[in-house]
Structures are given as structure tokens and as C-alpha cells.
């Protein structure tokens, strides 16, 4: 690590006093001094490498309950890699190696005694490309609960309807529950995937660029839905769309890599309005004002 300017130095662009709590040499401060919500996820020096290439390192941040936290940054900065650490999806990539700790309600989810399958029941995930199962709409939503032992036609039906209502999809699909999920429009498919996650009642929902394959109208619907869902769930979203982060999130983390896919770092993390109106780091400012990325 031969950096000439540490992030700490770079962040003092205006010489202002930084009231940062320094953790692992990173500029770190409580995302919002007035935050009263409890911390549900704590990332402590989290890093991911693929083979011997460190994709992202030293990410330390707290994620608050019932808040929407956005991870932004140019592509290749490791934001998706970090997101996948939060429900151990990186376990599925053979070359991926995760370092550091992720605490879910105080328990390190990478611990030996922890079953990744259980982690994913608490931390659900919605993917970039809508990926409904090749089954009916009803079966798509019932799939998770069924596999986890919910039985009985009535209870399943209730669970499915509730999930679809929460995902703001019920009115559009109520009369075609037996049609294949793949026959829906892109935006509907994505909301179906959200309903599918809601049906297993996670605490946290991770969204990996959930709108990148959708048109603007469908995107707005998903964003409205996210605000709605934040009442009951904690949401972490990766987005390359800064306007989306600004519109939808409470907290924003800006990440940046030294080169594409290598040595990504958390540059700045804070309340979204502060990040967008008064960034402390020059690089954050450059990014959000569109000077690069």
C-alpha cells in the first residue's frame, strides 16, 4: 500500500475540522449524529478479493434499522462485492475470499457456527436483472415460504397475497396468479422478485442495481416501493444512478477503486443530504458533480 495521500489527508480539502472517528485509518464518522435508529449491520474492515486480486478493502460502516443505505461509485469500485458480503452470496463464487467481519444484530455472520442459509433468510436479495422462477406468479412468491416449512393452502395464500400487496403488485396480478411470472413486464417482474423476498420475512433487503434494466416509469415505481418498504425493512441498495441514491436513500456511501476492479475503498459515508450537498472529500465531490465516473 503505497499511497501518497491517505484518504484522511485528502478529505481535509478545506482544512475544516473533521470530527471523524477513525477506524482502520479510514475517515469514519457516525453517519448521522442525530440518528436514533439502532445499528442492524456493522461492517468491520470488510474486504473481498478474487484469486489474489483485492477488489475492495477495509470497508467499515454501520447500517441503521429501517433506513435506506445506498452504495454508490463508478463501476468496478467493489460496491456489489461488498453488498454480497452482507448475505454471504460471495460464498458461491469459488475464487472469492472475504476478510473482515459483518455483524448482523451483533453476530458475526462469517463465524464458523453460522449457516449461510440462515443468514440469507434474515438478509434477502434482489438482483440487477429480474430473475423470476419459471413458475406461476403464485408459486414464485410461495416458493420461499414453502421451502421453509409454511404449509396449508390458506396460510400460503395469505402469505402470498400479503407479500404481493407489500410489493405493490397485487392489484396488477390478482386475477392472473396462475400465469408464469416470466410473462410479466420487466418492472412487474422486479416487483415480483421483491415480493418473493418479502414472503420469507427478512429483516434486511439488499438490492443490487434493481432498476438498471428498467424504464423510468418502472424505476419510479420501485423507488416509491422502497420508501414504502423502509417502514418495515432495512434496505441496502447498490446503484450507479446518483439521482436515484439522492432521491431514495437516507445514507450514502461513496466508494472508489484505484483502478477498475482493484483496491476499492470506502471514501465517504454519511447522511445522503450531506453527501450530496456538502461532501467532505474532494473525490466524492468530483463524482457527484459529474466530473468523473
Amino acid at each position, binding site marked *: 500500500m503505497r499511497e501518497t495521500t491517505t484518504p484522511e489527508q485528502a478529505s481535509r480539502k478545506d482544512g475544516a475540522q473533521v470530527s471523524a472517528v477513525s477506524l482502520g485509518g479510514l475517515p469514519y464518522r457516525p453517519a448521522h449524529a442525530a440518528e436514533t435508529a439502532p445499528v442492524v449491520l456493522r461492517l468491520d474492515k470488510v474486504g473481498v478479493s478474487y484469486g489474489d486480486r483485492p477488489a475492495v478493502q477495509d470497508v467499515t460502516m454501520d447500517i441503521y434499522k429501517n433506513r435506506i443505505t445506498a452504495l454508490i461509485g463508478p463501476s468496478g469500485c467493489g460496491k456489489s462485492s461488498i453488498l454480497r458480503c452482507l*448475505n454471504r*452470496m460471495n460464498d*458461491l463464487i*469459488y475464487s472469492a475470499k472475504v476478510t473482515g467481519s459483518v455483524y448482523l444484530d451483533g453476530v458475526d455472520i462469517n463465524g464458523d457456527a453460522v449457516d449461510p*442459509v*440462515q*443468514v*440469507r*433468510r*434474515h438478509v*434477502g*436479495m434482489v*438482483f440487477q*436483472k*429480474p*430473475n*423470476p*422462477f*419459471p*413458475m406461476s406468479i403464485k408459486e414464485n412468491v410461495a*416458493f*420461499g415460504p414453502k*421451502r*421453509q416449512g409454511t404449509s396449508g393452502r390458506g396460510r400460503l395464500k395469505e402469505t402470498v397475497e400479503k407479500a404481493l400487496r407489500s410489493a405493490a403488485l397485487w392489484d396488477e396480478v390478482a386475477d392472473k396468479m396462475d*400465469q*408464469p411470472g*416470466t*410473462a410479466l413486464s*420487466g418492472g412487474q*417482474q422486479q416487483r415480483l*422478485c421483491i415480493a*418473493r*423476498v418479502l414472503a*420469507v420475512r*427478512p429483516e434486511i433487503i439488499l438490492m443490487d442495481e434493481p432498476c438498471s434494466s428498467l424504464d423510468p416509469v418502472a424505476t419510479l415505481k420501485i423507488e416509491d416501493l422502497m420508501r414504502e418498504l423502509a417502514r418495515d425493512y432495512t434496505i441496502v441498495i447498490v446503484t450507479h444512478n446518483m439521482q436515484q441514491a439522492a432521491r431514495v436513500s437516507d445514507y450514502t456511501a461513496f466508494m472508489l477503486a484505484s483502478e477498475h476492479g482493484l483496491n476499492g475503498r470506502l471514501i465517504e459515508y454519511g447522511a445522503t443530504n450531506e453527501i450530496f450537498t456538502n461532501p467532505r472529500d474532494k473525490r466524492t465531490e468530483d463524482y457527484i458533480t459529474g466530473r468523473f465516473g
Partner: protein
Amino acid sequence: MTALFGQAARNQRLDWLQKFVFGVAFLTTIVVCVPVIVVAVYVISHGASALSWDFLFEGPARAGREGGFFPVIVLTMYALVLVIIFAVPVGVLSAVYLAEYARPGRLLRLINLTIINLAGVPSIVYGLFGAALFFDVIHTKQALWVASATLAMQALAIVITSSREALLSITPGIREGSLALGVSKLRTTFFIALPQAFPGIITGSLLAVSRAAGETAPILVVGAIAATNASLRPDAIINDRPQMLSYELYYRITEGLGLADERKWGLALVLLGIVLVLNVSALLLRIKIQSMGFEKRN
């Protein structure tokens, strides 16, 4: 003007070249189809007159010169069912391991190479190996079972390869989608991956079985070895000789008992028919499953 004219002339030349290349491609395709059609027409025209209710559903009389080949047809079906029972579960499970669980690396590459070579082993070698294994090591006398198990070994390669391809070609996001719901890998494999790969698995299995139906060399070896220790019990025909269609056909062609040509061609036609029915049903089943709408991908 000249430039335009020149351009037009060049396009005409290109046009001509294109027509020529695709014309040749079309001709080669036709040439490939011709033997198949000629064989089918020839077998049908020579054998169709032998076909009758008795030919298909009666036992032989006067050493096969009269009557029918019902026992042979039934034994062939029986053997093919055995091939399915022996080859498909093992093959699909191997494919599941290779596609879903095996860690990529040198060992996996070695296993894949072995399986590809499994398909390349000459069938007579399988016959010899099967006969040696089952008659000499396991000491069974059930020739039909031995023939089926031998054919199954050969069918395995096709079942594994096609099932693995089917599993690997399902949309990867779907597997992740299930895992991200907190569904275990085992359940994801059985409830998501296998159902979606099902058409491919069925097609591959049926094609493997249709290959086995027409396979002759391994059965000849098994049959020849079985004949040397065949008993004269009344049930000997079922137990001690792999009396399947291809074997029967070979036996009828080479024996000097003066079976009418028409009856030999009739037998060939029945064999061809079974293979065609298997192939066509593989195709239809695939279309049928796909049209159920659950196969549709975006």
C-alpha cells in the same frame, strides 16, 4: 456517376458470391438428408409387406419362418426399460454433481475428459467388458440383464453429458434467486435447477436409449458368451440369451435357415420404427414441456 456505377457492379458481384455460397451450403444439407431418406424408403418398401398383426403380436413358428417376433419385441422393450433404470438415475446424479457441486479445477477437468472419452469407447469393447464383468466376476446368467447393463454403461456418457449441459444452461440468476431466499443448495437443485433442466435431461436420455436400441456389437458379444453356457431349460430364451431386435436381426441375416428376405426387412423396419419413435418422442416431449410456458426466458 461512375462511382455509383462501380459500387453497383461490386454489389452485384457480392450478391452473386453470396448466392453461390449459400447455394452450396443448401446442397450439402440436402446431401446429408438423402441417405437417411433412402434408407428409410428402402427398408419400408422391402419390409412393409411383412408387417402384419401376426408379425408383431405372435410368437415364432417353424424357427421364425412363420408366425411373428412378439417375444423379441417385448424383450427389446424390457431391455430398454432396464437401460433407463440403470443409466438415467446414475447419469442425472453424476450430472448434478458435476454441474452444481463440483469445485472447478484440475480434478473436474479430468472427470469431464473421462466422461467424454466414455462416449468414445468402441461399443464392442463395452460388450467384452460387460460380459467379463457380469459373467465371470459377478457370475450371473441373466443374459438380458447383462446386455442391458452393458448398454447402460454406454448410454451413461450421453445421459451425463446432456444432463450436465442442460443444468449448466439454465439461467444462472434463477439459482442465485433461490439461494438468496435462504433456500439450501440441495433444495435449489431439486426445486429450481432440475425442473428447468428437465426437458434437456429427458431429450438426452431418450436419445441415449434410442442409441442403445440399435446397438448390436455389445449384445453380440454378450450373446455369444452367454450361448456357450446356455442351458436347455425352457426359459432359456429369456434368461440366457439377449434376444433383442438387433441381435435377432443379425442372427437371422447370418443363419442359413432360409428366412424370407421380406421377413428380415420387416424386422429391420420394426427396429428402425422403435428408434424413430424414441427420437421423435424426445423431440415432441421437449416441445410440449417448452410450450407449457415455464421454459420461457427473457
